[in-house]
C-alpha cells in the first residue's frame, strides 16, 4: 500500500532551502516566512496545516511557483524557480503543477470539457488531442456523462471533480490543492479526498494541500505544521492516526 508514499528514489518534487519571504508595507517589513526547510518527495501526499497568518498561504504560493522567495531557494521538480523569467514560470505552472482551489475556479463561460482542455491548449496541444485527453480525464474523475455541462449546471462536488481533471491535464508532477474541501459538505468533501488519494496512488502525482479538514489529514503521508513563519513540526500519519480517528468520529456522529 505504501510503495508510492515511500519511493525508493530520492527525487524531490519540492525542496525549499532556508526560504525567507518579506513583504514591505510602508516603513515596516513583515517577515511572513522566516527560514523554511522542506523536502517533499515525488509521489507523497502532504498536508500543510497552520492558523491564518502563520505564513501558510505564502509558503503555499511559493511551492506553487506563484511567488518567489526574498531569500533562499525553492526547487520545484529540481529546478530553482528564483532564476526563472515570466515565460519560464508560466511554462512551469502549465506543465509541472496542477492547481485545485477552494472555490473551484472553473471558467464559467466554458463547458466541463473545455475547462479541462484549456491547460492543454496553453501547452500547445492540438484541439483534437486535447479533447480526447480531456474526455478521458473526465471519465477518470467520474464525470464522463457531463462533459458538455457548464460549471453552473454542476454541483459543487462535480465542479471540484472537473477541477481535479483540469489539474491533471498536462500530467503535472505536483497537484497543489488549496482547501479543496473548504466549500463542500462532509460527504462530497470525502469523495474529493478519496479521488485525490486515488490519483496520487494511480498516477504517482505528488499532492500538496493546505487544509483544515481533518479527514484530509487522515489520508496524508505527512502533515507539515506551520507556525509563525517556521515549520513547527512534521508528523507522519502513523503518529497521528488515533487522534484523527476520534476527532473524525465525533465530527461524523
Amino acid at each position, binding site marked *: 500500500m505504501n510503495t508510492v508514499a515511500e519511493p525508493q528514489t530520492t527525487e524531490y518534487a519540492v525542496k525549499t532551502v532556508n526560504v525567507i519571504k518579506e513583504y514591505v508595507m510602508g516603513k515596516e517589513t513583515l517577515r511572513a516566512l522566516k527560514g523554511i526547510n522542506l523536502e517533499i518527495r515525488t509521489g507523497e501526499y502532504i498536508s500543510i496545516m497552520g492558523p491564518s497568518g502563520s505564513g501558510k498561504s505564502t509558503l503555499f504560493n511559493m511551492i506553487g511557483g506563484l511567488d518567489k522567495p526574498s531569500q533562499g531557494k525553492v526547487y520545484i521538480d529540481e*529546478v530553482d524557480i528564483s532564476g526563472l*523569467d*515570466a515565460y519560464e514560470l508560466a*511554462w512551469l505552472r502549465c506543465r509541472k503543477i496542477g492547481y485545485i482551489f*477552494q472555490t473551484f475556479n472553473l471558467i464559467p463561460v466554458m463547458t466541463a470539457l473545455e475547462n479541462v482542455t484549456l491547460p492543454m491548449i496553453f501547452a500547445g496541444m492540438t484541439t483534437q488531442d486535447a479533447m480526447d485527453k480531456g474526455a478521458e480525464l473526465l471519465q477518470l474523475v467520474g464525470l464522463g456523462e457531463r462533459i458538455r455541462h457548464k460549471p453552473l449546471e454542476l454541483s459543487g462536488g462535480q465542479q471540484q471533480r472537473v477541477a481535479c481533471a483540469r489539474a491533471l491535464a*498536462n500530467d503535472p508532477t505536483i497537484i497543489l490543492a488549496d482547501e479543496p474541501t473548504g466549500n463542500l459538505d462532509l460527504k462530497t468533501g470525502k469523495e474529493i479526498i478519496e479521488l485525490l488519494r486515488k490519483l496520487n496512488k494511480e498516477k504517482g502525482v505528488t499532492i500538496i494541500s493546505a487544509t483544515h479538514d481533518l479527514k484530509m489529514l487522515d489520508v496524508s503521508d505527512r502533515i507539515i505544521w506551520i507556525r509563525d513563519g517556521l515549520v513547527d513540526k512534521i508528523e507522519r500519519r502513523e503518529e497521528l492516526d488515533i487522534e484523527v480517528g476520534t476527532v473524525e468520529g465525533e465530527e461524523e456522529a
Partner: protein
Amino acid sequence: MSRNQESRSTIRRQIKLPNREALKIALRSIKIRFWRSMITISGIVLTIAFLTYVILSGYINAAIPFEKGELAVTAAQDNTRQYWLIGISLLVCFVGITNAMLMSVTERYREIGTMKCLGALDWFVIKLFLIEALFQGLIGSILGAILGALASIFVSFVEHGGTVFALLPWGQIFSGILGAILVGGVIAVLGAVYPARRAGKMPPADAMRTEI
C-alpha cells in the same frame, strides 16, 4: 516515473498562443455577458451615431446647391460647434469603456488568476480584453453608423424633399460610415488598454483569494 526523468530540469519557455484561441474565449465572454455588453455598447452606438450624423450632414449639405449664401455660413458655424460636441462625446465614450472594462477586470479577478495558474501569459490575458473591447466597439459602431446615416439622410429628405436622393453623394456617405466605424473600434480598443494591462499584471495567486 520515466515521464519525470525525461522532462526533469528542462524548463522551457511558455509558447504564445494562436490568436484564434484568444478570439474564441473573448467572443464567448461577450456572449455570456450579453446584456451587460449591450450597456457598454449602447454608449458607443450613441456616440458613433452622432459622429456619423454630423459627418454625413456635412457631406450632404455640401453636395446640395444652396440658393442663399447666408445659409451656408450658418451651417459652417453649426459644424464647428458640432465638432466640439463630437470630441467631448468621444471622450465620454472612451472613459465609459475604460470604466466598464475596469469593472469587468475586477469582477473576473479569479478567472484571470486561474488562467494564469494554468499557464496563460500576461500578453494572452491582455489580448482577451482587447479583443473583447474591439468586438464591442465594432458592434456598437456599426449600429451607430447605420443609425446616424439614416438620420442624416432623413433630415435632408425633410429639408429638401424627394429630389435629394438624386443628389446624395453615395461614395462620401459610404466612406463616412466606414470612417466612423473605424473611429469607434479604435476608441474602444484604446479605452481598454489600461484595464487590459491591469488584468495582465494580476498575480496568479489572486485565484486563491476567497474574498473580493
